[in-house]
């Protein structure tokens, strides 16, 4: 069953007098529990596609369905609620709120969901253990390495048991060893919790981990292969 359906989506960005077609009539369907990599060179449209799937942006043409709900028919607040309750995000950098500790960054999303304090504490401690950062719980982002910061971001993305985690170049700022560890962790969560992971990446290691590789070029899908 498709958790995400992208129907003939196009997106044009305008910068001054110059227009740039980031996506051109893209169609894609992603099943629940898939581990998908959207690959392609810079400017191929992978981040744009990820943003449209996450409801961070709206298409100029076509429709994006998340769990059969048309995102174009939702208003800004409804899309924010959808992201809060059903989607986890991991970005390339600046993933964490600098003034909050690792534990608070994870707790923040549960707070927004109005989860009770006792439940929150349990979940935060458990996820910090799971990502191997229990001893770094009270450290602020500037006291964590890049890899540790990304692990906190992953922990925050999955703590709410989202249906989908969207990750935009999550390994781009990490060395290969740290990147691999992070991917292993996400893969393990994908298997154990049946969370759908969608990556925008041009990192070969991410592509190697992915079960499905969707390649984009000039805003079009040029190949879609399952391993």
């Amino acid at each position, binding site marked *: 069953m498709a958790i995400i359906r992208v129907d003939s989506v196009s997106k044009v960005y305008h910068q001054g007098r110059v227009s740039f077609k980031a996506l051109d009539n893209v169609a894609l369907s992603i099943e629940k529990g898939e581990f998908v990599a959207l690959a392609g060179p810079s400017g191929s449209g992978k981040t744009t596609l990820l943003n449209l799937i996450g409801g961070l*942006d709206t298409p100029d043409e076509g429709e994006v369905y998340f769990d059969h709900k048309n995102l174009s028919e939702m208003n800004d607040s409804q899309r924010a609620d959808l992201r809060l309750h059903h989607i986890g*995000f991991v970005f390339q*950098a600046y993933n964490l*709120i600098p003034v909050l500790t690792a534990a608070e960054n994870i707790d923040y*999303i549960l707070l*927004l969901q109005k989860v009770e304090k006792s439940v929150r504490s349990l979940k935060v401690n458990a996820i910090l253990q799971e990502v191997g950062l229990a001893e770094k719980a009270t450290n602020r982002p500037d006291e964590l390495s890049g890899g540790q910061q990304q692990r906190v971001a992953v922990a925050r993305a999955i703590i709410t048991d989202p249906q989908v985690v969207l990750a935009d170049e999550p390994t781009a700022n990490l060395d290969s060893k740290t990147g691999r560890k992070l991917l292993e962790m996400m893969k393990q969560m994908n298997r154990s919790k049946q969370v759908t992971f969608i990556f925008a990446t041009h990192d070969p290691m991410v592509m190697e981990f992915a079960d499905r590789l969707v390649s984009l070029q000039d805003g079009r899908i040029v190949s879609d292969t399952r391993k």
Partner: protein
Amino acid sequence: MTTADWMSIQIGWRNLWRNPRRTLIILTAIVIGIISMIVMSAFGRGMMEGMVRNSIDNLVGHIKIQNPLYRIDPAVDNRIDTVSEVADQISGLLPEDGRLVKRLRLDGVLSTSRDHVGVMVVGVQPELETGVSFIGRPLYKGTALDPDDTNGLLIGQALLERLGLEIGKKVVLMSQDSASEGRAKAFRIRGSYRTELRDTEKRYVFVNLHTFQDMIGAPDTATEIAVNLDLATTYQTGRIEELVNRINEQLDNENLAANGWRELLPAIAAYIDMFDVYMLIWFVVVFIAMGFGLANTVLMAVYERMREFGLQRALGVRATGIIKSVIIEVVLLLLIGMAVADFSSLFLVEVVFGSGIDLGSFGAGIEMWGISRVVYPVISLKDIFMANGVVILLGLLVGLYPALHAARFTPVETMRHL
């Protein structure tokens, strides 16, 4: 308040101290602004309080009972006959802290061997004037009037100097008697007084009430009965109004009326009423200057944190949540500023300026307005609330501008700034 709100406050608080220098600079501006509001209003109120006290002290009193015609025409015809009876009736109505004095006040001429000068002759009960009017205070020179003294006179130091007189010299007073005939009597100067206002020193001479009554041939006569209460500030007009009403209701003599000082000094009363409006305008003007700095600082902080706002939006925070978080920071900034400024203002007013601010160098100018040479600032809760209210209300309005900016950042826009 929800736990999420507490988290927002915690985030706001920590964000404030991410750039301590910037926060301290804007805090300094807020603190100085609020201090200027409160201290200036305390100074203004102190000046006003001094002005009111001087006027009340200047033979007005908190309440005065007199023939209403006397206020229009201060002639002997408009006197109070059988004043002791009236005074007894009023005494029965007074609260414990009430003090009552009778005075006979008529125009007259003071003559020396070389000069004549128009004066206001006031017959007083010197032993009762203490705490009621300036003549009850210690004299500048000489000795106080003995109640049995039948030819003693007190004169203002300014008039004494102007006429080239000395303590112990003899003068002649002329005034109208009860039949509007001229009467004269010789007096000896027993002492001289000083007041805040030199005009007062040049205008009033004091003799014993019974002496003046005998001189004009009208025993048991006065032109006014003054009543004073123990009031911490002259703004406590509620008790005065209550007593005025009670006296007017129960006074048998229909030719007499009691008035509070606000009715006796309408210009000062109107000035006091307008003072709050002046202060509000002053507060708004100060805030406008401060508000630009505040808006600019918060806007800078917002632009610096575009990515964070984008991240929060991506995580599912609504636009209203972003507005709330920025407003919380503004409110925290204002609350810190207000707390520091309020305590500093209290310290300045009560400790630093507690012993008064000497305006002696502006002598003639301030005297024209009846203001004391030494001003004791009066801090008023109303002014503190008004200053803080203006700052928080307008601060929220000013804070809305950067908050709305922050809410307009979309996650995609901010990601492009990565």
